[in-house]
Structures are given as structure tokens and as C-alpha cells.
């Protein structure tokens, strides 16, 4: 991993600007006016209780969900413009899911090359070379010919990261990438994300791994009930949260075994 750092650096990390974003499902308001700026190369962690709209926010950024109101801009492209080429937007944005979503009927290598071939129109040999390079980045070069089902959860998630990286994204979205993993494999995935952050990738990460958020994130955003309650430097939000809701959430996540007295 050390030797490839120079070539692995995100070519043009993009900024993200989210402004007044609203999303509802029927009468259920899930996002109630979210605004958020992410600088190129910045790592922002989204934390918050389940159901607070973190996944929905992330999925709006690559248009897996269509927001009703508000703007999202990635680099200089406004992705909420109704005339935008959705596929072109998604080509620049890598997404890593909680459930990996590897293609089970394809080898690991094919998982990494199929979109390069069909979407970017790369040659077989170029796609293969990029794929092998990214498998090496995630420490799985020897698994190129394996089937996803033969890999552990942690390995599958690393393949999913390598698959996204093979498209040379300018922005990476992670939706609870370690939540479905056995505890002993979480560290490998987080360390790859840490490397990626160091290499200058713009990253928007939904996570419950507070140690990762504290150490790696430039900023932490705490969401609850579809709004941003608090945001700031990672050490401030996690170390000295200002809002009651943030404090309650963090004490639950950081001391899950402790009995909590209900607070207002």
C-alpha cells in the first residue's frame, strides 16, 4: 500500500455543497432542510441515531433518491438540476453500501472491471490493470479470481471499496460500511478508509465507529430527526458536544452497556 500512494491519490477530489435539502416519502418528512459543505479532500462523518435520515442524505447525493427541494452540487455540477445526466454524475461518485452489494455471479476481478468496461469504455487490459491495482490497495490482490461468496464480510467490503475506486471517483460515499461486519474484520476496512482519507479523497461517511470519526474525520455532523443538530471539528463534536441530543446519542454509542437515565 505504501508504494502505490503516489498513483492512488484521488485525481481531482470534488467538493460537495448541499443547500436546504428536503426529502419526504409521502407524508413522512425525512430530510428537513439539510445544508452541508464538504471541501475537496475533506472527510466528513455523519453520525446520528437510526432513522435520522443519514442514509437518505447520502443516497440523495448520488441521486439514488430524488430530493423534493434544495440543491446539491458536486464540484461545479449541480446534480439536482432536472436536466443533469444522472449516469454521468454517478460515474464520478463512488458508493459503498452496508451490505457490500457485490455481484455474486461474477468473480472479484469481474466485479471491478464490468463497469469500467461498460460505463467508461475502457479496454479489457486497461480495466484489468486498474482493477488489480485497486485490489492491491485493499490488500486482496490474491483474491482476483475468487467468487464473492468465498470471502469474509470484511474482504467483501474491501472488494466493494476497490470496485468503487476502480472508477476513479472524485467523491466517495460510505453508508455504514462496517455495520454488517464481524468485529474482527472491521479494523481492516477502517484502515483502508483511513488510507484513502490520507490520499486526499473527498469522503462522506455514515458511521457508528466513533474512534474512526474522531481520528480520521476532519468534521463530524450529528443528525437527528432529519436536521443537522450540530457540526464541527471531530474532536469538538465527539469530545465536547454542545447539544443535549448529541450528548445523549454519544453517551449511548460510547457506553452501550451503561444504564441511561432518560433525559428530557
Amino acid at each position: 500500500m505504501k508504494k502505490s500512494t503516489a498513483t492512488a491519490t484521488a485525481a481531482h477530489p470534488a467538493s460537495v455543497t448541499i443547500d436546504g435539502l428536503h426529502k419526504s416519502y409521502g407524508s413522512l418528512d425525512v430530510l428537513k432542510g439539510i445544508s452541508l459543505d464538504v471541501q475537496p479532500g475533506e472527510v466528513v462523518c455523519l453520525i446520528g441515531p437510526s432513522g435520522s435520515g443519514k442514509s437518505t442524505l447520502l443516497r440523495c447525493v448520488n441521486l439514488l433518491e430524488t430530493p423534493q427541494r434544495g440543491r446539491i452540487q458536486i464540484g461545479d455540477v449541480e446534480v439536482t438540476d432536472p436536466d443533469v445526466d444522472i449516469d454521468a454524475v454517478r460515474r464520478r461518485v463512488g458508493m459503498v453500501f452496508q451490505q457490500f452489494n457485490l455481484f455474486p455471479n461474477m468473480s472479484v476481478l469481474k466485479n471491478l472491471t464490468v463497469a469500467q468496461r461498460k460505463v467508461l469504455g475502457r479496454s479489457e487490459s486497461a480495466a484489468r490493470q486498474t482493477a488489480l491495482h485497486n485490489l492491491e490497495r485493499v490488500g486482496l490482490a490474491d483474491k482476483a479470481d475468487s467468487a464473492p461468496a468465498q470471502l469474509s464480510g470484511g474482504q467483501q467490503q474491501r472488494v466493494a471499496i476497490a470496485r468503487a475506486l476502480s472508477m476513479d471517483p472524485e467523491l466517495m460515499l460510505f453508508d455504514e460500511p462496517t455495520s454488517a461486519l464481524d468485529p474482527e474484520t472491521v479494523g481492516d476496512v477502517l484502515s483502508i478508509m483511513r488510507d484513502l482519507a490520507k490520499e486526499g479523497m473527498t469522503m462522506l461517511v455514515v458511521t457508528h465507529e466513533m474512534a474512526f470519526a474522531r481520528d480520521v474525520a476532519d468534521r463530524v455532523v450529528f443528525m437527528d430527526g432529519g436536521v443537522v443538530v450540530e457540526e464541527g471539528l471531530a474532536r469538538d463534536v465527539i469530545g465536547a458536544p454542545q447539544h443535549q441530543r448529541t450528548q445523549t446519542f454519544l453517551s449511548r454509542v460510547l457506553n452501550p452497556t451503561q444504564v441511561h437515565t432518560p433525559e428530557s
Partner: protein
Amino acid sequence: MAMTARQRARISRGVQYGLLVVIVVALVFIADWNTLISRALNPSVMAQQFPQIITVALKNTLIYTALGFVAGMSGGILLALMRLSSVAPYRWIATLYIELFRGVPAVLVFLALGFGVPLAFQVRFNNLVTVMLALGLVSAAYIAESLRAGLQAVPKGQYEAARSLGMSHARAMVTIIIPQALRIVLPPLTNEVILLAKDSSLVYLLGMTVAQYELTKFGREAISGTGAGLTPLVLAGVCYLIITVPLGLLARYFETRADARSARK
């Protein structure tokens, strides 16, 4: 005396086997074997059937089945995509079609295409086209339902992952979703081929040249010959089994493979 459930089950099974043996033996004794063999399993009549029963009849049955399957598969894919479309009228049309052609006997479809359509539109298809259309129209409805179930069985995350990699809807369907759905629908599709092989016998309704005879028509013509008895039909039946039994085994193999795959998950 008290019996365990297992003992009781074993005794009950023994009784059932015994009964089965008695019935078979009784049938063997009651049957008039000499007449039966001379009328239904007559070796000299069988010999007369070759080689045409293979080179013409079996071959034509296979051709009609294959044509029907190609047409049914094309129509079925289209209908399944329409059923899953976000455009409501597509869904209505597909649902209407599927209900109509699943509910009407294949015989009527053959008659409609063979006689109704020529009357109505002053066109006359050649038999191959009629067979292909009739079998295709009927099987498309069943195939569409199998495909729809298969497409819906592919987890939503697969589609989202494909789209997130920049694939268009069509690209994601063709490259990622449909190949996975096909694995799921291989067993029902194989069963559909078995049904098609049998339904292809309905071509006899259309009036054919000798070279177009398939197994059933070939057998029916042969029994109307002098003294042929039922042997040609028995032989035709055996030929159908030659097609359908391996397909049945194949369907079962696909099923166990699919089970093994989902068990591994």
C-alpha cells in the same frame, strides 16, 4: 402394546408397499399380454416407423419447440419488463396479456392463428410461422411471470450498486440483473420447454405436409394405416419422453444448484 411414532410409520409404509405390489401383480395377470404386445408394442410395426419417426417427426417436434421457446422468451422478456415498468399503461397491457393467454387453452390460440387471423386479415402465414407465433404467444405469458418473479428475487442492492457505478437502467438490467434472474428462473423455464414440447403436438390442427409432421401427427397418421394398431402412438410417447425426461432432470439439477447457492449465502 404401545408403539413409537417411528414404528407406526414403518408399519404403515410396509402396508402401502404391499398394496402397491398386489395391484401391480393383479394388473399384470389381468392384462391380455398377447393382444397388447401385438397391438401396442408390435416390433414389426415399430421397425416400419424408423427412420422417419426420428428424422422427420422427432426433428420437427424439436424444431417447433425451439421456435416456440425463442418466440416465447422474446415476448416473455418484453412482458416481464413491461410488468415491472414505471409506466402504468405498460403494466396494464402486460397484465391483460398474461391473464388472457394463461387463461385460454393453447388449442384455441392455434385455431385462432390458423383460421381466425387468415380470415380477418386476408393473410396466410406458412405453418412454421404459425407454430412459432402460437406457441410463442402462449408460453410468453408463463415465461413473463417466471421472469418477473426472478427479476424481483434479485436484491434491490444489486440494482443500486450497478446504478451507483454509473450504469444506465438498461445497462444495469442487461449486465447485472437479468443474468442473476435467469439463474433463478432456469428451473421454471426448463419446465416451460417441457410444456412447449407437448403443446407443439397441436400443430396437427393446421394441416401439414408429410415433411412437417411432428411426433403426434406422425403417430396418428401411422395408426390409421392398416393393422398398425396402437404401436406408433406408444413409440411417439417414448420419443416425447426422450425429450422431456432429460429436461425434467435438468430442471431438478438447476433447482438443487440454486438451493446449494442460497444455502451457502
